[in-house]
C-alpha cells in the first residue's frame, strides 16, 4: 500500500466522509448547481443562496466516491458565508494547491491533491469545484 494512497484516503478523507458536514438537500435554494462526471456517474447538487454578494446556506447532496464527497464537503466549508470576491480567490487558491503550486497547502488540500497520482481520479477532487467555478464565471457581481 503506497504512501500516496494512504495520504489520499486515510484520516482526513475518511473522517470527512463519515461526518455529514454540509450534506443536505435543499430544494428551495436560490441556486442549485449540478456537478456531474459522465465517466464515473458521480453526481452532486450544490445548494446556495446569494445575499448581498455573500454565499449563504451552502450545502451539497448526491452520490460519489470518497474523494469527491470529501472534496464537496470541503467546498461547503470553504465557501460558506464568503463574499463572491473571496470565493473566487478561494477557488484560485484551491486549484493552486491541486496543481502543487502552493508550497504549504493545508493538510486536507494536500491529501486531495494526491488524487492526481491515481489514474482517472483527478476529476474526483475537483468535480464540485469545477461546477462552482463555472457558476461563478456566469454570475455577475463581486
Amino acid at each position: 500500500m503506497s504512501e500516496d494512497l494512504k495520504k489520499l484516503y486515510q484520516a482526513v478523507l475518511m473522517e470527512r466522509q463519515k461526518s455529514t458536514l454540509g450534506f443536505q438537500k435543499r430544494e428551495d435554494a436560490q441556486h442549485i448547481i449540478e456537478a456531474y462526471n459522465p465517466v464515473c456517474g458521480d453526481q452532486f447538487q450544490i445548494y446556495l443562496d446569494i445575499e448581498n454578494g455573500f454565499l449563504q446556506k451552502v450545502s451539497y447532496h448526491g452520490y460519489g466516491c470518497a474523494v469527491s464527497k470529501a472534496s464537496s464537503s470541503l467546498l461547503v466549508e470553504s465557501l460558506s458565508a464568503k463574499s463572491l470576491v473571496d470565493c473566487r480567490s478561494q477557488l484560485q487558491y484551491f486549484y493552486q494547491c491541486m496543481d502543487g503550486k502552493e508550497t504549504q497547502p493545508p493538510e486536507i488540500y494536500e491529501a486531495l491533491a494526491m488524487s492526481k497520482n491515481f489514474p482517472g481520479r483527478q476529476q474526483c477532487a475537483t468535480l464540485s469545484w469545477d461546477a462552482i467555478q463555472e457558476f461563478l464565471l456566469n454570475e455577475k457581481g463581486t
Partner: protein
Amino acid sequence: MFDARLIRNQFPILNTQDRKGQPLVYLDNAATTQKPWQVMEALADFYEHHNANIHRGIYQLADDATQAYESVRAQVAQFINATPEEVIFCGGTTEAINMVAHGWGYDTLSPGDEVLVTAMEHHANFVPWQVICDRTGATFKVLPLEPDGSLSLTSLEQALTKKTKLLAITQISNTTGIINPLAEITKMAHQNDTLVLVDAAQSIANDQIDVQSMNCDFLAFSGHKLYGPMGVGVLYGKSTHLEKMSPFQQGGSMIYQVSNNKTTFKKAPHKFEAGTPPVAAALGLGAAIRFINTLGMANIKAHAQELRTHAWGKLSDMNDVALYGVALESGAIISLNIKDIHPHDVATVLGEAGLAVRAGHHCTQPLMQHYGIVGTVRISFSVYNTLSEIDHFISALSKVKSLLS
C-alpha cells in the same frame, strides 16, 4: 482443458511489470482483451510484406492484400457459421449496430412501429435505437428486468407484438454476465415477424456462436474483445436483409456506378464497406481467431466457468459484498459492490496493487437505474487468468475494506 499459465507466455504484456515492479493482474477483459504475439505479428507482417490498398490494384501486392483480407472474411464466416457474403467488416460492435439502426431503421421504421431493447443493454445497443426511433417517429421500448437483473421470457413474450419490428438484445450482459437464451428468443420474436439483432460483444470470445442455430437476423461483435486489434469488428446479417438494407456510409469500393444524377451500389458485403478498410486489423482478427480455434471454444468456456465459480463462491462468503446477476449459467463477468464503499475507491486501491478491474456504470446506465446504484466493481476473465489471480483479488479486497471502511 488447457493450462492458463502456459497460455500467458503467448501474451507479451502479461510478462511486463508496472512502475512499482508488480506483475499485471488483468481482470478487465470485458473492456478489451490482451493480445497474443500472433496478432502483433500479423499486423507487422502485413505492413512489412503486403501493404497495399485492396480491391482496386493490378499488381501483386494489392492482389495479395485483397486475397488476405477476403480470406479473413471466409474465416469469420466459418467461425460463426455464416457465408462470407453475410460478413461485413467495420470498426467494431458500435459501428455494426449503428449500421443497422440507421441503415435498416431509416428505411423501415415509421410511426406505429416499435423497437424493443432490454434494460440490460450496453449504450451501444440502446442509444442508436433511441435516436433512430426519435427520427422516424417509431416507439422506443425498454423491457424491464427481473429484480436480479435477468430477463423474464414471459415478459418478453408479452412485450413482443406485431408492431415490434426489431428486438435488439445482448447475448451476455457486459455488467452481470447474465446469458440470454437467444435461440428461444429469436423463435418467439419471429412469430411476430420481429427481427432480432444480437449484440455478441461479450459472447464472441466466450462461447461458440452459430448464427444458423441461433437464427438471429443480425449479429455484431468487436475484434478487440476477441484477442484481436482495436478498430475492426463484424456485422453479420442474413442475406435477405442485407440485400434490401441501405449502406450507412458511402464512398469508394462500394459503388457500382456513379454519375451526377444517379449512383448504384455493389452487392453485400461490399456495399457496406465504404472506403479503405482496416486491412491490417482484419488480418490481426484472423490471427486471433486461429488462436482461439487452437485452444478450442469448449475449453475456453470451461476455463472461464471455473474461474467464475471460484470467484463467486469466495465473494458470496463475504458478508459486506453485494453481487449482481446470477450465480450460474453466466458469462466470464462478475459485478459487485462493497458496502458503503464507492466502486471507484475500490478500483483505485486495487489498481495500486497491480489489479486492473473496472469501476463505474460500464456503459449500462439503464441497468444501474434498475438496480438503483451508480456503479459496480467489475471483474472479467479470460483464457490467461488463473485461480491464483482470483485469490489475489479476493485478498486485495480485504485490504480495501480495512483501508476504506
